[in-house]
């Protein structure tokens, strides 16, 4: 047995050093200025026009989807919705830096990743109308997407649970010899859960190729970040786990793209986790059940509206001559129409047959569930 020395890296001092906030600076990577012009000393990631436009269009797409679905919820057509307005760059930018083989485990505000992967309007609608065409069979509330063929793990409401799960998934990918990683999204609120601690620590110790992507959007429902933690954001925790950490401007899609590309490279090459903290703002209400006027000012929202990630990227694209404003407007309008059309079509699709109520509890329904279904059907037929 080799000797172990858990003090091998520790230096001695003879007067007390108090380690505290402010001791280290965790800067935020920003490549594009507010007007879309790159910072002078910034090196932009290599990106082709096609990818850039796909990223842009996906952001626009989810913005439109959010608007339409909030309206649909107000009209009572769906029961619930949760928008990502203001945070489109974080999720779309990171998704664009991944490969399709990578598993996405998300919290719930990451429709941008899903749209980028190719989830169609019809699929979105099927999920939100809980109908029989939805692979999750209408068993979960709206926004709990899941798409095996897109390597997008079905969303689960309890917060933080996906964090240690992502470590385990990534460990499995590594053991199976796959050239793939797992990315795990969560909010700065969810990062207070015990599962966050467990997941990050395990990933570090067990060398799991996983990207922990924290959307620090300033709020967890009504709770502001300052009542959520007292440290320097979530990034400052990376050090405590021995996890390489990058903080990025979540409203700058180029910065998010670059940081995630780099994180993926590190995770794969070194078989280790990387933590990204994207600084952004939840411009939307928490969900359609929420009214933010109860806990924050319009003024504060307004300041952030000016940092709109879509506008910033549009400006850059225009500077490249890749985006024509009129065509863009037309495209957005077309998307709106398409969403509306699908919505109208899909809301007529029926829900699953009642037999599905007992499926997927186990691999096959045990006798007692079969009996319960028989009784239920007999009752319904009365």
């Amino acid at each position, binding site marked *: 047995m080799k000797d172990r020395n858990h003090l091998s890296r520790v230096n001695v001092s003879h007067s007390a050093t108090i380690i505290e906030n402010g001791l280290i600076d965790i800067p935020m990577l920003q490549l594009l200025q507010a007007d879309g012009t790159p910072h002078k000393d910034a090196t932009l990631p290599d990106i082709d026009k096609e990818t850039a436009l796909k990223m842009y269009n996906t952001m626009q797409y989810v913005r439109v989807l959010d608007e339409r679905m909030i309206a649909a919820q107000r009209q009572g057509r769906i029961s619930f919705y949760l928008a990502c307005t203001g945070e489109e760059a974080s999720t779309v930018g990171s998704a664009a830096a991944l490969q399709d083989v990578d598993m996405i485990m998300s919290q719930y505000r990451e429709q941008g990743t899903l749209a980028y992967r190719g989830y169609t309007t019809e699929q979105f609608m099927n999920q939100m109308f809980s109908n029989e065409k939805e692979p999750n069979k209408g068993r979960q509330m709206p926004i709990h997407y899941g798409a095996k063929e897109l390597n997008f793990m079905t969303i689960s409401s309890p917060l933080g649970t996906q964090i240690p799960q992502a470590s385990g998934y990534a460990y499995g990918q590594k053991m199976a010899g796959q050239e793939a990683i797992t990315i795990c999204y969560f909010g700065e609120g969810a990062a207070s859960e015990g599962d966050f601690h467990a997941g990050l620590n395990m990933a570090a110790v067990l060398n799991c190729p996983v990207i922990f992507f924290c959307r620090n959007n300033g709020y967890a429902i009504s709770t502001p970040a300052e*009542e959520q933690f007292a440290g320097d954001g979530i990034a400052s925790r990376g050090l405590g786990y021995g996890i390489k950490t990058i903080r990025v401007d979540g409203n700058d899609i180029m910065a998010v793209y670059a940081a995630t590309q780099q994180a993926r490279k590190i995770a794969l090459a070194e078989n280790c986790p990387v933590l990204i903290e994207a600084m952004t703002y939840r411009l939307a209400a928490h969900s359609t059940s929420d009214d933010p006027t109860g806990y924050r000012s319009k003024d504060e929202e307004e300041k952030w509206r000016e940092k709109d990630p879509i506008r910033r990227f549009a400006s850059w694209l225009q500077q490249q001559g890749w985006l024509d404003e009129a065509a863009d407007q037309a495209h957005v309008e077309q998307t709106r129409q398409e969403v509306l059309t699908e919505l109208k079509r899909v809301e007529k699709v029926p829900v699953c047959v009642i037999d599905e109520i007992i499926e997927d509890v186990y691999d096959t329904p045990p006798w007692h569930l079969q009996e319960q279904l028989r009784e239920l059907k007999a009752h319904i037929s009365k």
Partner: protein
Amino acid sequence: MAKMNLLQAINNALITAMTDDERVMVFGEDVGHFGGVFRATSNLQEKFGRGRCFNTPLTEQGIIGFANGLASQGSVPVAEIQFGDYIFPAFDQIVNETAKWRYRSGGQFSCGTLTIRTPYGGGIAGGHYHSQSPEAYFAHTPGLKIVIPRNPYQAKGLLLASIRDDNPVLFMEPKRLYRASVGEVPEEDYELPLGKAEVVSEGSDITLLAWGAQMEIIEKAAEMAQNDGISCEIIDLRSILPWDVETVCASVMKTGRLLINHEAPLTGGFASEVAATVQERCFLHLESPITRVCGLDTPYPLAHEKEYMPDHLKTYEAIKRCVNF
């Protein structure tokens, strides 16, 4: 007296408790300036200050761990878990710590002052993470009390009693009734007894037992049965732990029949405890098998919520089966 809905009655109870005893503190996710996602803690922070009503970070295990320590210190914490479905990260703190604190210390320390409030139950299109009724998960835990009110009047009186009872209480609020249930509530301070079921209406042919939001369901079913000439005795269990075996058994001795209704899945639900106990204690009085009308043994579904629910129709059919057994 004032007309209040269930949320207002709870808010009113909290104000009463906090005014009466400055050791009472109310906290949980979003309960501070926002007043909770259901607004049960509205205005408390304004009235009693940030020290006594505050937001916590988003960690249920932390909330209850913190509350346990605070209770053992002598304060009177009323901790909110935003949804009953999210109480499970705190399961260890509740089952291994809260419940065993007094016993393991020989009574030197306890969490007797702790009350945990949480909304539970379905019927709100919430799917399996906003609809669960987890009472039975806790009912296997000596040291805890579990209390569930059925309406605003009950809610205020039982919550005040829970806060003041010298035992940790899990107080589960039927969220389907939060705004739907409205009734007269005394503005003054009052308590209703813990551990006591209430015979809501007397009858002779069968005893119907439920708690919380399902009380409406069995009452509706009883009305339907009444039209068939079946006389139902209706009991609100109110306390799940310790539960009022005496009242329930006295009723079953009289009626000879028992039906228990709960929303949680059948297997391992609290109805099983009731049935097991009653069949033992009232054996020779039973005219028909004790019947459980409960949720299916599946996660709480969304699209088929209506079918899943042990509603008045299923209950009515079961009453007839019992009586005609």
